[in-house]
């Protein structure tokens, strides 16, 4: 039962990682100076023009403490917090009171997932195909040119790429809107088209951002793999360049790239923050930014735990499916 043992081991590791991650996100903000409740109350007071009585302030403080789960000593709070996380209950959002945080996150999730999963896959496919061809024919001049493009694109920070794309395609050549507008109401053909049109710029920047790394990594892998003895053997057998490139080189060079793909799918909620804020795109990242601005801690915590959960789950899935892709891994062999 080697397999069962492996799966159980991985799963325990997964739970441990989740537990420590959630614990750290609980304690860290509490070590920081500043108090969310005081922040919020000073906001309310500023709006009310100092007209709140001391009792009203105290009442507000108590009800906030209850909502945030900040009653009792820190260990009681921690226990309650863990219990709520397990039930996926992050309490009500403050900005959209009494809407529960989980509902808000569920509403925002399809936007982020739709945009980021599509672009991550596209960027992976295009980047790896180009990297494979450039690596397999690495002596050609155009392969070098492609590599230079990858080298220039890869280190550029995401927000810079986004700004350049906005300047070029939304400002100087006004092909696309500066910020998206989505039609309300049920999904119709028109709505689908408008979503694609309005998501085009954020999608383009995300594809460009992932593209450089995929090209460089795949090229390096393909160059290394094509010198392997089994590829030489296939060449002597008289296979075509095309067959060797796809069936021999790609299938082996693909493995580390699958790791990268699954991990980057796990990081989508993290990667979405910059995109969504820069493009005012209504997903998890935008929710997180708005919650941070409004001091909506329940919502922020919910979003963070969602990101931790998705990264850890991606790593777990990777560990579990890897033996399927790589025949060289034999469990307990």
């Amino acid at each position, binding site marked *: 039962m080697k397999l069962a043992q492996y799966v159980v081991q991985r799963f325990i*590791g997964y739970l*441990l*990682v*989740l537990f*420590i*991650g959630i614990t*750290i*996100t609980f304690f*860290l*903000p509490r070590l*920081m*100076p*500043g*108090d*969310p409740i005081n*922040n919020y109350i000073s906001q309310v007071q500023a709006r009310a023009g100092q007209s709140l009585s001391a009792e009203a302030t105290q009442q507000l403080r108590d009800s906030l403490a209850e909502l945030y789960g900040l009653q009792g000593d820190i260990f009681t709070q921690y226990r309650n917090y863990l219990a709520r996380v397990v039930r996926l209950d992050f309490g009500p959002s403050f900005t959209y009171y009494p809407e529960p945080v989980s509902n808000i996150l569920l509403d925002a999730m399809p936007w982020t997932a739709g945009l980021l999963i599509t672009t991550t896959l596209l960027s992976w496919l295009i980047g790896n195909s180009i990297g494979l061809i450039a690596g397999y024919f690495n002596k050609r001049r155009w392969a070098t040119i492609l590599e230079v493009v990858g*080298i*220039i694109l*890869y*280190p*550029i*920070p*995401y*927000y*810079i790429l986004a*700004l*350049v794309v906005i*300047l070029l395609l939304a*400002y100087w050549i006004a092909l696309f809107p500066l910020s998206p507008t989505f039609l309300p109401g049920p999904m119709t053909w028109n709505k689908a088209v408008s979503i694609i049109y309005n998501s085009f710029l954020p999608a383009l920047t995300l594809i460009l951002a992932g593209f450089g790394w995929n090209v460089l990594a795949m090229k390096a892998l393909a160059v290394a793999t094509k010198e392997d003895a089994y590829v030489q053997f296939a060449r002597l057998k008289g296979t075509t360049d095309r067959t060797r490139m796809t069936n021999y080189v790609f299938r082996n060079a693909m493995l580390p790239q699958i790791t990268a793909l699954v991990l980057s799918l796990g*990081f989508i*909620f*993290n990667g979405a*923050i*910059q995109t969504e*804020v*820069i493009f005012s795109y209504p997903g998890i990242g935008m929710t*997180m*930014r708005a*919650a*941070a*601005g409004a*001091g909506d*801690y329940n919502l*922020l*915590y919910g*979003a*963070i735990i969602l*990101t*931790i959960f998705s*990264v*850890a789950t991606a*790593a777990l899935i990777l560990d579990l499916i890897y033996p399927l892709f790589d025949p060289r891994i034999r469990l307990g062999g």
Partner: protein
Amino acid sequence: MSQPTKPRKLRKFNLRLAIGLTIVTILAAGSLILPFFTSVDPAAQGTYLKNLPPSAKHLLGTNALGQDIFWYLVFAVRNSLLLGVTVSIGITAISTFLGLSAGFIGGWYERIVVVFMDTFITIPVLPILIVLGAIVRGNTSFFVVAAILIVFGWAWNARTIRSMALTLREREFINMARFSGAGVMPIIGREIFPYVYAFMVVGFINTILFAINTEAALAVIGLSNVVIPTLGSIIFWALNYNAIMIGQPLWIIAPIVTTVALFLGLFLTSTGYNELFAERRGVA
């Protein structure tokens, strides 16, 4: 009298390293030296007339806040670089120590370190910084940002160094040293360190990129301390005042060009160094 030297093959000139180092040296030296020649705080608003075009006095003009764009940019590069180097020193020290010790000591110690590595890789830095930024309300001091980047950034490097330590552990010369009676620390210091050194240099530069990028990303969306000039805060202000729409393209294009140059320079330095090192060791 000079020794007759053998005609040694000249070490291949590495173009990437040369270009990268040139860019980084110009930007680093410029941003560290130039601030001594001005007494004006570039972040102070209303120092000059607003929206002046570029001139000899204001190389890149002034912005809608009455700040000199060129000087603001100089201070931004300096602050971002200082943050990057500080964070990178911290991360390199921690990750080298934990990675090597975990790889060599093994046992329970290694398991505990590995669990923490996996956890810290899982925790996303940007959201954590957003929460902390929300709690301290934009008063995040630079040191706090640096400390958080170190705490949440060491794990990737540590993981790479640990796996290097794992393969090195089984090599002949390590066994040789061990059988000769060398302790763990001397082995790590004298036998392992030279091997890990090249990765540390590359990792050090890449970590600078990571730190500058994360702080800038936070600043661009307005969640770092945007009062301090950094490569991110300059863009935050330019976006906030719609620099392009009000006819001040330089306000946003100058930091974009500078950021691209700096990142490209650092990246070329790190990959160029990697290539050069591999060639010298005959690995490539």
